[in-house]
């Protein structure tokens, strides 16, 4: 087998093995270099995978050489490659900025381990996406979760600790629910391989056990996904985590959970079961709507910008779920697009805040009055991200909202349009509060003589901001990939 054929496993084990390496190297600079190299190598490998699956092929990789269902299989289709690309791309960008930010926020003697944990979080997320085995999902879920708890707790405020603990409890409940769900599936089919499960489930799909498995998996993944009302852990976790962790998590963690949801709902259970028998969309739809409206509303009243963005994330997840709830190819495409675009916009926004945090040491709105005068480039990127969040045309956010509304219209659900519009308007309000304060208020005296953030932070921030513009203007790439992914995901639907 050539190197090319090993890409499916390489994208996971490169960061995975980089973690112990970081621990062994033990010096922040070396560990950072190792992590940087690993993340970029992973990114490159992922691009290879995307290329291999671009036209809808599925790659299967037998770990340990054992054929499924006896061994564990990695299964990369367009959808998986797409999500892998998001995770590794964001990780690669984050690692560029990490050195500067980490040097300021993490004590030097823990920095190496911090990088190791970051690599583990990344590897865990990659593993969840790559695998074709239900139980393997659980294992990698825990790798990413455990490292995430640790990463969040490294925040400077003591509330980071409590936030991490809350996340740990909620996350573990979620993981245990997923474990119960997988257990029921295994109980009724005797297999753990997703493809095999999909083949064997229809025969037993009338059993209450399968319905319960479905329910438990949905709730469990919903917890990881911060599905309203299971989102309570998210705002604090994102708000108090170290800057780089916020960037990485906000851009990737919930996306992978969405992927997982798609995997189980469509690949494992199949849309017939999920939709016709379980009517999942009637559960998701109201939750998504409430999430969009209530979380956006709460975001309006936040003083802490990271917290505000975190609530915004809950709302954005609402949009993604809304797309899923439409349960049409268009809707799922919209959801996938928003998965990608939301990663870009939240990445840019949190990255800009990381730069602000680096300079000012605070992201409380009141502390930042007039900061635009001193850090115009950073806050300029913030504005671009914010516009994308609102869904202004020529930004990535517009593309996904466009698709979402079109899908809603196609499904005949007209009344969703006002919901989306109100959500966007609330986004205008909470984002514009910030713009007003940083650009138009008289400067906070404490800020005098602040300077622009260093290039190592500014570069990644702008890279993400420009990506928002690029994928807003030239959305062919994302829409095309999303559509291919959806086609392979729900071939039967229509």
């Amino acid at each position: 087998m050539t190197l090319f054929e090993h890409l499916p496993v390489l994208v996971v084990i490169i960061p995975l093995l980089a973690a112990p390496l970081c621990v062994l190297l033990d010096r922040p600079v070396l560990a950072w270099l190792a992590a940087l190299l690993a993340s970029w190598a992973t990114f490159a490998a992922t691009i290879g995978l995307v290329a291999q699956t671009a036209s809808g092929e599925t790659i299967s990789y037998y770990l340990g050489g054992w054929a499924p269902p006896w061994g564990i299989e990695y299964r990369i289709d367009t959808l998986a490659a797409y999500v892998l690309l998001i995770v590794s791309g964001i990780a690669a960008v984050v690692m560029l900025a990490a050195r500067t930010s980490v040097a300021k926020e993490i004590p030097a003697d823990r920095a190496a381990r911090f990088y190791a944990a970051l690599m583990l979080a990344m590897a865990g997320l990659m593993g969840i996406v790559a695998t074709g085995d239900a139980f393997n999902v659980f294992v990698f879920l825990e790798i990413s979760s455990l490292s995430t708890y640790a990463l969040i707790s490294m925040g400077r405020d003591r509330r980071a600790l409590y936030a991490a603990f809350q996340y740990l409890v909620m996350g573990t409940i979620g993981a245990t629910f997923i474990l119960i769900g997988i257990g029921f599936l295994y109980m009724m089919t005797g297999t753990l391989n997703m493809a095999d499960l999909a083949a064997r489930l229809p025969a037993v799909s009338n059993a209450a056990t399968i319905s319960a498995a479905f329910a438990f998996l949905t709730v469990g993944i919903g917890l990881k996904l911060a599905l309203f009302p299971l989102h309570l852990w998210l705002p604090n976790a994102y708000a108090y985590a170290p800057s780089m962790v916020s960037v990485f998590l906000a851009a990737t963690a919930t996306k992978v959970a969405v992927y997982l949801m798609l995997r189980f709902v469509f690949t494992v259970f199949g849309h017939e079961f999920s939709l016709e028998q379980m009517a999942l969309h009637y559960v998701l739809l109201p939750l998504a709507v409430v999430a969009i409206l209530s979380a956006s509303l709460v975001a309006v009243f936040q003083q802490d910008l990271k917290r505000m963005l975190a609530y915004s994330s809950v709302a954005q997840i609402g949009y993604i779920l809304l797309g899923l709830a439409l349960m049409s190819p268009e809707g799922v495409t919209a959801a996938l697009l928003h998965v990608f675009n939301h990663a870009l916009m939240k990445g840019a926004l949190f990255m800009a805040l990381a730069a602000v945090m680096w300079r000012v040491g605070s992201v409380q709105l009141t502390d930042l009055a007039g900061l635009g005068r001193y850090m115009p480039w950073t806050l300029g990127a913030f504005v671009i991200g914010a516009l994308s969040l609102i869904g202004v045309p020529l930004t990535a956010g517009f593309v996904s909202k466009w698709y979402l509304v079109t899908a809603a219209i196609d499904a005949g659900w007209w009344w969703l349009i006002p919901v989306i519009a109100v959500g966007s308007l609330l986004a205008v309000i909470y984002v514009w509060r910030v713009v007003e304060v940083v650009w138009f208020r008289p400067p906070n005296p404490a800020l005098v003589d602040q300077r622009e953030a260093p290039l190592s932070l500014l570069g990644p921030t702008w890279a993400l901001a420009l990506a928002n513009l690029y994928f807003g203007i030239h959305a062919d790439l994302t829409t095309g990939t999303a559509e291919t992914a959806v086609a392979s995901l729900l071939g039967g639907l229509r």
Partner: protein
Amino acid sequence: MTLLGFLVLIAVAAIRLRDLFAVVMLFGVYSLLTAALFMNLDAVDVAFTEAAVGAGVSTVLMLSGLHLTSRWEQRPKRSPLLPLLVVGVTGAVLVHAMLDAPFVGDPQAPVQTHVTPYYIANAPVEVGMPNMVTAVLASYRGYDTFGETVVIFTAGLAVMLLLGIQQGTHNRPGLNAIGDQLVLRSVVKLLVPAILLYALYVQFHGDFGAGGGFQAGVIFATGFVLYDLAFGEGDARTVVPPGWLHRLAALGVLIYGGVGVYALLAGKPFLDYSALSADPVAGQHLGVLLVELGVGITVFAVILTIFYAFSGRGRRA
């Protein structure tokens, strides 16, 4: 059945008691009982692990945690209605699900008829070891076990990040307050070598019976935990310096991963042990031995790290 009855009693008591110390003790008992139940359900390996982990490591850790926090729980102010409702609904769904589930022990259940027969028929031949659990664990689903090793490594990393580890000192804390635990020390000194050797026995006999790298690592670490408890952390840290541990933990993961990468370099899929030798079965054997070693090293290092981290905090407090 009786065991299950005991479990129910303990669970109810754990809800009601406010003395967290008692709750933790009961949790230890609960784990031990669960392990006995696993024996009864033919899950030797699991029983082994649950006993070492649930009753041993978890209890010790929780006690350390309790020591560093507080022993008494406040009377909760909030209403129990909502939790009860959630639990009720969840429980109802579970009970509902159970009504359609195959009976316990039904030989016609899908679990027994689909993938399992393959393992039972082929594992002893293809992997060449009598203990099918080890064969499945380390070879067929070796990748899961790799993940498991990484999970434990992650936990060690997390605890190191959170608590940090103090370097060893030579004082014997606790002793000045209580006086000399002479009897305990003498007995422990006799037992520790036996425990360590037993751990290594478990490590290398996983192919034949209950045990394997994970259990061995836990027991090996337990030996030093016992030593630490009796002789004080100063001595323990001189025997096994904390500086070794994070390197060992990383090393274990790298051994496991290294076997996988070696297979890659040999042109086989990741973790395909048949790349290790011309004879596939011998390759499997060697591979399992190596990866179990990696697991053992990591688990030992991490468990001891965690324990050190807690006891180090204790001294400061």
